[in-house]
């Protein structure tokens, strides 16, 4: 009886350990998911950001159409639009354009734009040298601002991709008086 009690305890402890490990694994899926998206470029997340490491000769023989889209997340009152709906970009050349944002409300607001690329396959060839999406944007009441973006498409972009859609979704991250939701802490993954 004593022995079987010990056996049960030992097995029970091990099974509890498995449970705890699986709970931790659930949370581990969060960074794993980000890493997976980064490696594969799935999900249209752009990870090539910052100054160019390798300068590329621009390929004048080829041009790619980059469609620019602006989306307001639900409840976001700003007027947000690209300067041009589409631009033609030679692979390898750094191209600049901008979005315009206007805060029509009577209060100071804070916003954050989240980019997404379609087709997802193109995400890893799109390099953003400088982008307003790297930072939060703050606009006073009735203020308008140009939000610049510098991008470069790598020469390795597969030839069948002729159009890339770059979409920005603008989120209202103004701290709520109650502080209930949408307070950015960056707890899950670094801001992109």
């Amino acid at each position, binding site marked *: 009886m004593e022995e079987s009690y010990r056996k049960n305890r030992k097995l029970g402890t091990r*099974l509890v350990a498995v449970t705890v490990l699986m709970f931790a694994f*659930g949370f581990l*899926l969060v960074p794993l998911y980000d890493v997976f998206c980064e490696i594969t470029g799935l999900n249209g997340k752009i990870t090539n950001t910052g100054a160019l490491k390798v300068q590329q000769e621009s390929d004048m023989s080829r041009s790619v159409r980059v469609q620019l889209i602006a989306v307001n997340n639900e409840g976001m009152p700003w007027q947000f639009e690209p300067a041009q709906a589409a631009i033609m970009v030679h692979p390898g050349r750094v191209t600049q354009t901008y979005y315009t944002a206007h805060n029509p409300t009577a209060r100071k607001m804070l916003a954050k734009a989240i980019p997404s690329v379609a087709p997802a396959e193109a995400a890893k060839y799109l390099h953003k040298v400088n982008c307003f999406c790297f930072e939060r944007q703050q606009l006073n009441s009735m203020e308008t601002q140009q939000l610049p973006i510098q991008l470069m498409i790598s020469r390795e972009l597969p030839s069948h991709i002729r159009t890339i859609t770059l979409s920005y979704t603008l989120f209202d991250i103004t701290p709520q008086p109650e502080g209930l939701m949408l307070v950015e802490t960056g707890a899950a993954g670094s801001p992109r």
Partner: protein
Amino acid sequence: MATLDQTVDVHEDHGPAKGITRWLYTTNHKDIGTLYLWFSLLMFFVGGTMALAIRAELFQPGMQLVEPALFNQMTTMHGLIMVFGAVMPAFVGLANWMVPMMVGAPDMAFPRLNNWSFWILPFAFIILLSTLFMEGGAPDFGWTFYAPLSTTYAPQSVTYFIFAVHMLGISSIMGAINIIATILNLRAPGMTMMKLPLFVWTWLITAFLLIAAMPVLAGVVTMMLMDIHFGTSFFNAAGGGDPVLFQHVFWFFAHPEVYIMILPGFGIISQIIPTFSRKRLFGYHSMVYATLSIAFLSFIVWAHHMFTVGMPLAGELFFMYTTMLISVPTGVKVFNWVATMFRGSLTFETPMLFAVSFVVLFTIGGLSGLMLAIAPVDFQYHDTYFVVAHFHYVLVPGAIFSIMAGVYFWLPKWTGHMYNERLGQLHFWLSFIGVNITFFPMHFLGLAGMPRRISDYALQFADFNMVSSVGAFIFGFSQLLFLYNVVQCIRGGRTATDQVWEGARGLEWSISSPPPYHTFTQPPLVK
């Protein structure tokens, strides 16, 4: 392990305590099994009432009885209650009753833990059901509670839902640990793993699925809780999170979960078909290995629930092929059941009727699952009534019918009385007809494009919806026959023999009907 002698004098059977405290304090596996089964029947009727509210609203196009907000709460609560309140506790109840008796153990390995796993459940469901009476209403985001619908846009009561899910998870995990320890440590001498009855085998594998999957569910609701109250951004794109991540983590839990709800059913059917075919089960070993492979595959197919989120081709193909692969071990099982019946000396008592219809109707559900597994066509079927038809075919005539079959099969053993066979057969036929009238037309509705989880529909869907609602009421009300039959069987009836069924084999049929309060205090010797 003092003696293996089976002729030892039976010790004085002190029997259960008296009054309500018998049920509150009990550590007896039979009492706890009974509690689980009654609780799950209660939840089956609660969840069923909600299903009837849904079907009543969908009887005709336009808005009649249920407001859209309440309709969403009904679909959500119906799903949650049926999954966590009806199907899972019913299987745990059957395991509590049968596993110790089948392996020759005196009780579960951790009897006190067992008491706790059950008594958490009523409190969890009181919390969950109380949300119906709260301001803002109950959870209305579907049982899959996708973020941000369940975080940013959720009613206030979502926090209660999260804590209820936590409690359910703790209960299931403790139950699973108990079952694993009982099966691995408390088998009678001579009961080797490959002699275990299939119900025990399937439950062992299910219990491992539970301790692997339920903690991930606990994780995902914890992330929701943190997003809602502590300002994190796991699923909030503005803060660097990703709503699609929710779907990945959720389905990583929920796909194994759907096998948790069917594997014990496979076990029950594998007990019943040989009994009423008066043959041994065909392909015992292949049944065990098929169950193991289904369990393994269940962890690598989750994204077939989310083909339309924008996965790359390689991902779609991987999840499509692995999903289709599941039909191989499942096919082995169906083949074995049919081969067991082949040239058997068949009789069709109620448990066998449920078991045979399980094999047929579960296979229909499996085939529509195979259709849904094909990624390119899933874009058409996604979020339509075709999906509703599919998973109701595997859950109602699948999981629920296997539970009904198991209850009719073992009820004479538990109570010592035979149930009313005519009433049982009437219950079966009404259920069988009701289920098919309810869910078969949903295939056509889905293929024609009717979206799920919406309280109204376009006029061209009217006729099939009316048929479906009629079937739902037939099915729902015929379950009252089941309740009546069970109660009558407990109160009295023709005395059951120890073996109960002519073809029954196994330790559980060697003890008296009803079994003494404590069985196998001396381990039996299995030859």
